[in-house]
């Protein structure tokens, strides 16, 4: 290709990328970084400083909410992995060619409706006068209606529900790439089921596991409706703090600070995860 034309087309390809990444990602992030450093000293009076961060550190509820969010997100990620792995394995390796496509499609079902409707569905099911309680009552398994909403278990169930898809999809695609001959070689050389699982399947699926965990963790940590609607009085989720700052307290400075804190903190968790498993972002999440 002639040089000039190559340059021109490179430029043409670069323009949308740069517009997107600079205007919609990089500058806005810098923007919240900037706002987070403005401290309010009076009505319409601001100074530069770390006060917002100091406030964050000084106020136990913020710290605790962040830790709780992180801890619950890790829990949700772990549950999603444990629940999702057998399903992913079934789809990728056990199911026949045709049912595989159908099962995979069925995994996408939760995506068909929004978070809102999903949470709404759980509420309809789990509330004290909801379907589950009524059915159990009718069957005589419980004596009086039970409230299944507003506790951490429910929040976890609901969150696992919303994110498990993002665990299963990368798992299925890595597991599908695994040659069955590897498993057979594993057995042929004398491995038991457990050995083959531990030494062959898991290491092979590691990029998928890590990718799934990263996405799941980030989605959970950044979710809003599910923990709020299902957690009720006991919710307290870090994104809620951010929304609260912006939407009910119109305190953008604090909100931006929380945003930066959340981003840094979750990135840190992801980074530690990558480091522990010896993977990198480009080899896991980006893998097709």
């Amino acid at each position: 290709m002639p040089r000039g034309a190559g340059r021109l087309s490179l430029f043409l390809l670069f323009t949308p990328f740069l517009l997107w990444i600079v205007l919609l990602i990089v500058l806005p992030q810098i923007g919240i970084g900037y706002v987070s450093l403005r401290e309010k000293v009076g009505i319409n009076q601001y100074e530069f400083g770390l006060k917002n961060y100091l406030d964050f550190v000084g106020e136990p509820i913020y710290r605790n909410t962040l830790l709780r969010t992180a801890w619950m997100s890790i829990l949700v990620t772990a549950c999603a992995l444990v629940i999702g792995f057998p399903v992913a394995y079934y789809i990728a390796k056990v199911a026949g060619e045709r049912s595989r496509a159908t099962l995979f499609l069925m995994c996408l079902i939760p995506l068909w409706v929004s978070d809102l409707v999903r949470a709404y569905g759980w509420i309809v099911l789990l509330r004290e006068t909801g379907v589950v309680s009524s059915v159990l009552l009718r069957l005589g398994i419980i004596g009086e209606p039970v409230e299944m909403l507003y506790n951490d278990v429910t929040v976890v169930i609901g969150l696992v529900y919303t994110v498990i898809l993002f665990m299963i999809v990368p798992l299925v695609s890595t597991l599908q790439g695994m040659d069955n001959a590897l498993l057979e070689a594993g057995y042929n050389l004398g491995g038991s089921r457990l050995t083959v699982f531990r030494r062959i399947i898991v290491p092979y699926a590691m990029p998928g596991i890590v990718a799934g965990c990263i996405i799941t963790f980030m989605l959970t940590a950044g979710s809003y409706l599910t923990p709020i609607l299902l957690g009720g009085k006991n919710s307290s989720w870090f994104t809620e703090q951010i929304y609260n700052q912006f939407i009910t307290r119109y305190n953008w400075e604090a909100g931006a600070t929380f945003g930066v804190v959340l981003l840094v903190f979750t990135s840190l968790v992801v980074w530690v995860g990558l480091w522990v498993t010896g993977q990198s972002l480009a080899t896991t999440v980006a893998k097709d």
Partner: protein
Amino acid sequence: ETLRLLTWGGYAPEELIKKFEAENPDIDVEVTLSNNEEMIAKLRATGGTGFDLAQPSHDRVYAAQVEYNIYKPLDLSKINVDKMTPKLVEGVKANTTIDGEVYSVPHQWGTSGIMVNKTLAPDATGWADLCDEKYKGRTSMRLRRTILLGTAFGMGMNPFDLYGDKAAYQDMLDKVTEKLIACKSIVKTYWTGGDDLSALMLSGEVALSETWDSTAFKIYAENPDIVFVPPETGALAWIDTFTIPRGGQADDAAYKWINFVLEPENVKIMSASTGAIAAVPNGIELLPEDKRAAVEAAFDEKDIENLKFFANIPPGLEDMEGIALERIQAASSQ
């Protein structure tokens, strides 16, 4: 031309919009539902653009305007102020005049108090009952500033008197916070909207709850056992107003709408939808039959006397209240 309303649920009934559009064929009405905090947040974010008419409560206009400059002064000559209840107009004007310019006029008023299912909680009378051990798991409230104020009244304090003194106010907030955290194990859940609350009450899951009277009046029609009870310390009275955002682009249409909803036959429709009382002299009479019954069942003369109107929040207090609310939310109930 489009008239973009930023208002409360129920404050723009479909019937009225249709009628208004019929009378003004060149105007299209678009509605965004909101609440006090969000109205301010939204207008702050838009720099006062994006909406042509907003309806914050009277106590939430002043500080927001001073700090964020999101409204424009009203041209009172374009509003039929004389059709409104003079006392309410004066009250609102007093709260929302800055540099001699008036920023809002009243629209609907009502109270916050408690809603009681008489079969389940026959003797609930005040804010304090919401945290009574005997209703464990059977009460609800909205975790917003109203419950802070109500609880303070219930504890024998008067927060409005403390507005001038931040330290005292903080002191009061601390007590209220402590009380409400202790109360958390009693409360079944914090409701977030009228719908939520209606479902909780109608299903019988909740026996008593903090509420807007208007929501209570609506439920009364479904189940007459559920009534609004003005707390013995006085129901908290609010006035929802009209303001015009600074970047509004349809001022004429906005004034037309304000005047339109003052027409007696329209007031009727409006009140039927909001459950609240219009800021016109015969507001109560213009309520629909069933709601008027509910109001009459709820209020007697003494209650009306006892109303506590929300006072203007001075800038800064909201932050203190915000932190108090966050503490309560984050505290564990177990």
